């Protein structure tokens, strides 16, 4: 017998991502997908964020890595619900991986779920996991030429965080040039300069997050 299908071959991930988005919506949760190279400072930034926001927002973190639970262990020490997903070689989180762990969270009680993606500036940009927004983290040591080399993530992200600005004096990173390139790729994107070591820009970043959660919850 003939079975009519009419399904996009590469649509599998998007369908599951849409389901995840609905789950977040039903529970009034703002979901953020943080993307950046290995060593950009994603986990440290999250630790600082938790320090500032855990009193005012109910948050949970989903960590994505190939192997180890090192990042989840760091987050767990801050007494926030955290789940580690190990991809065992996969270079990005996909919607199915995230959907599998959502039942482990007490979604009804959460305001904010941050998903720290696998360290990678390329592949995670291609795959929606049901998030409300993506954040692109670029550190000073990676070089000011990276936005044009990895345009997709800067186009996809609602906010770009330029991290480790305390090291600027020791590098040839041209801040104006990097910001100009990012803005060319994505007119209107929010750019926030941070240093986790010196705790600068963290308040600005947390304000952005709080506003995002508020907007989501006010519908």
């Amino acid at each position: 017998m003939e079975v009519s299908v009419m399904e996009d071959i590469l649509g599998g991930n998007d369908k599951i991502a849409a389901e995840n988005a609905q789950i977040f919506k039903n529970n009034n949760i703002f979901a953020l997908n943080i993307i950046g190279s290995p060593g950009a400072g994603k986990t440290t930034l999250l630790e600082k964020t938790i320090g500032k926001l855990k009193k005012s927002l109910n948050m949970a973190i989903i960590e994505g890595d190939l192997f180890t639970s090192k990042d989840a262990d760091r987050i767990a020490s801050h007494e926030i619900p955290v789940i580690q997903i190990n991809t065992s070689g996969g270079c990005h989180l996909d919607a199915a991986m995230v959907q599998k762990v959502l039942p482990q969270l007490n979604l009804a009680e959460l305001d904010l779920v941050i998903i720290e993606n696998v360290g990678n500036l390329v592949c995670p940009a291609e795959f929606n996991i049901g998030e409300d927004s993506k954040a692109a983290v670029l550190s000073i040591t990676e070089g000011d030429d990276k936005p044009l080399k990895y345009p997709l993530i800067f186009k996809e992200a609602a906010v770009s965080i330029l991290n480790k600005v305390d090291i600027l004096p020791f590098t040839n990173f041209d801040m104006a040039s990097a910001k100009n390139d990012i803005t060319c790729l994505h007119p209107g994107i929010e750019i926030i300069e941070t240093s986790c070591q010196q705790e600068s820009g963290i308040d600005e970043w947390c304000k952005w997050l709080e506003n995002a959660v508020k907007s989501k919850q006010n519908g």
Partner: protein
Amino acid sequence: MHEMAMAEGIMDIVKDYAEKNNAVKVHTISLLIGEMTGVVVDSLEFCFKALSKGTIAENAEIKLKNVPLVGHCNDCNWQGHIENYNFFCPHCKSGHMDIISGRELRVEYLEVD
């Protein structure tokens, strides 16, 4: 293109629909492949053959339907096949062309038992 990723996508859809319809064997898989997708047919068939071994879709025939690259001119309403990837309207020479079809990558139907 990424024929292996596509073969996996096809396999997922086939398994899903076969299960939903209580099928025991898949004989034919009909695909709609747009002209502009750049799919290498031999590569896709090879990848799918490898993936479907030992599954309900082993030895299934893959039928490919090519969907032509058709454009529509927003200035003069001309609509037709785009030749040589030339996206200027052959009628009025304007560049305001939209792609109507030719980008599809879809499983159209299955023949199952």
